[in-house]
């Protein structure tokens, strides 16, 4: 019953899916103990953040039917918020909180303005305008290097308790450091925000969003102010993306355009949501986990494959680890055509 409330009654509705989700949850929960090593923890933290980021994007793309290319811009706002606050206010929890909240507020305000201009005309405007605005902001950030550190970004300090230097003894044979503590901050914050999103999509408000996605004309005719609902969804989605950005910055202790603002990141996000399954928050979990794992480990595999085929000119280039986006792009196109409901939709249909 308690669990039912936690997941807002939105069951995975497929045995395999349930098993996968449970495995991901437990894997992340016990990551420091199950998979020791810096790289594994790095991957786990990244997965946590990207699940949240993808879920917030799905609120817009899958549930409201609005395509945005500015989601990483909001992500970046949260990250830079924490980074700049920590830099200027000094290391401390206050900086983290102020930075996160300021980032989220700025993101929501920006989302509101963009929505104001584009959503009342046609949905396709929104996609084009967000693309334009996001790229302008990305350029602005790399140009204003005195504030943002430009292309290189900047590192900053977080509370000592969360740093690797803080050693708190051993547990289950694993040395507990501030880094692990930091991981759990990231993990639990992501988890809580994820559950909040899950609740939102299963609330009366969330149903209205789905109705608008299905038939905005009729939604308006039965008394829903479509633009208002779309705008609110855009703002919530942007604010949560910013908070995900804050968590990411906290984990990396660094912000820079490549890790938070780049168009490549935006494409990754699109791939995560579409391949995982649009219109179901669980899709974000599956998609993000797969994506990050692939990014981290598949590239190694491709690297060795490229070496093995080094003699064959074109093939080795196609298998170059840097070209993995090529294969993902192909997978993405196929997925839009043949599995528009993504992995989750596939699993549910095959139940």
């Amino acid at each position, binding site marked *: 019953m308690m669990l039912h409330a936690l997941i*807002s009654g939105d069951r995975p509705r497929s045995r395999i899916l349930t098993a996968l989700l449970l495995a991901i949850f437990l894997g992340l929960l016990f990551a420091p103990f199950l998979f020791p090593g810096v790289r594994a923890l790095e991957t786990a933290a990244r997965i946590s953040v990207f699940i949240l980021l993808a879920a917030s994007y799905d609120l817009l793309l899958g549930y409201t039917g609005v395509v945005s290319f500015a989601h990483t811009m909001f992500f970046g706002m949260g990250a830079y918020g924490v980074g700049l606050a920590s830099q200027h206010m000094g290391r401390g929890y206050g900086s983290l909180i102020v930075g996160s909240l300021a980032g989220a507020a700025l993101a929501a305000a920006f989302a509101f303005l963009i929505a104001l201009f584009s959503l009342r005309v046609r949905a396709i405007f929104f996609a084009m305008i967000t693309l334009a605005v996001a790229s302008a902001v990305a350029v602005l950030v790399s140009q204003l290097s005195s504030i943002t550190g430009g292309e290189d970004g900047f590192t900053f300090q977080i509370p000592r308790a969360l740093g690797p230097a803080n050693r708190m003894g051993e547990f289950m044979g694993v040395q507990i450091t501030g880094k692990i503590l930091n991981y759990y901050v990231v993990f639990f914050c992501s988890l809580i925000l994820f559950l909040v999103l899950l609740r939102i999509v299963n609330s*009366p408000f969330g*149903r209205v969003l789905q109705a608008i996605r299905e038939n905005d004309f009729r*939604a308006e005719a*039965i*008394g829903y102010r479509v633009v208002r609902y779309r705008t609110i969804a855009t703002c919530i989605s942007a604010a949560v993306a910013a908070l995900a950005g804050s968590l990411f910055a906290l984990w990396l202790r660094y912000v820079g355009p490549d890790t938070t603002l780049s168009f490549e990141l935006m494409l990754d996000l699109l791939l995560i949501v579409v391949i995982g399954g649009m219109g179901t928050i669980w899709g974000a979990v599956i998609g993000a986990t797969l994506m990050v794992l692939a990014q981290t480990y598949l590239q190694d595999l491709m690297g060795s494959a490229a070496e093995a085929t080094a003699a064959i000119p074109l093939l080795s280039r196609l298998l170059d680890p840097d070209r993995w986006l090529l294969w993902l792009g192909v997978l993405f196109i196929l997925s839009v055509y043949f599995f528009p409901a993504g992995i989750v939709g596939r699993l549910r249909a095959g139940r």
Partner: protein
Amino acid sequence: MTEVLETSGLTVRFGGHVAVDAVSCAFRAGELTAIVGPNGAGKTTYFNLISGQIAASSGSVRLMGQDIGRLSPSERCKRGLGRAFQLTNLFPGLSVLENVRLAIQAHRPVSASLFSMVSRHTGLTDEAMAVLERVRLATVKDQPVSELSHGNQRKLEVAMLIALDPKVYMFDEPTAGMSGDEAPVVLDLIAGLKAQTDRTILLVEHKMDVIRTLADRIIVLHNGALVADGEPAEVIASDVVQEAYMGKELTDV
């Protein structure tokens, strides 16, 4: 009897074409008014003007004495104008129950509730089920609308309107495209609504037998203008209606 809905001098032009031409008409509570006229007479456009899908060039629409001519469709609906569409216009990917529940929650603050679970609002679900029972769709409540038969979609269309519980019901050819045995179900539903005496019902319909049995009053639109208004029998017999429907004799061709 009070006038619930009133249009005065309502006009809309598209380019040079006057689609609705200074229509002044009042609709009273408890009355079912049939709106008839040949194709292209401006009936659906008149509906669109009242429910706000298109903006009038001039004239006013008043609901319960208040001017609603500048409000958005959603705002007009909130104030009590319920509209069903000629072509079925539902939320195809959502379930039947969800469609009706969305209509029920439309005018309640609960729609803005972000952090409560839909399944906890059992009151809404019960109300939706009651409406579905009434239109005999309860057995298909969990089906996605896109999988319903055409007849059931038309019924759901009526159910959405009942769920909105408006002061004014506007039906635009509710039996269009229905087979002979499906239509009576929908007409029965409308007759049932009429029995709730305080409701105002506007009905665009072509089948004269339907009009004769259901309507308290007929208004006739022709080339966008209101050309007749009165008791069904008297209007149907009038010359002006004959002419609107049959056309003038063409003496010179």
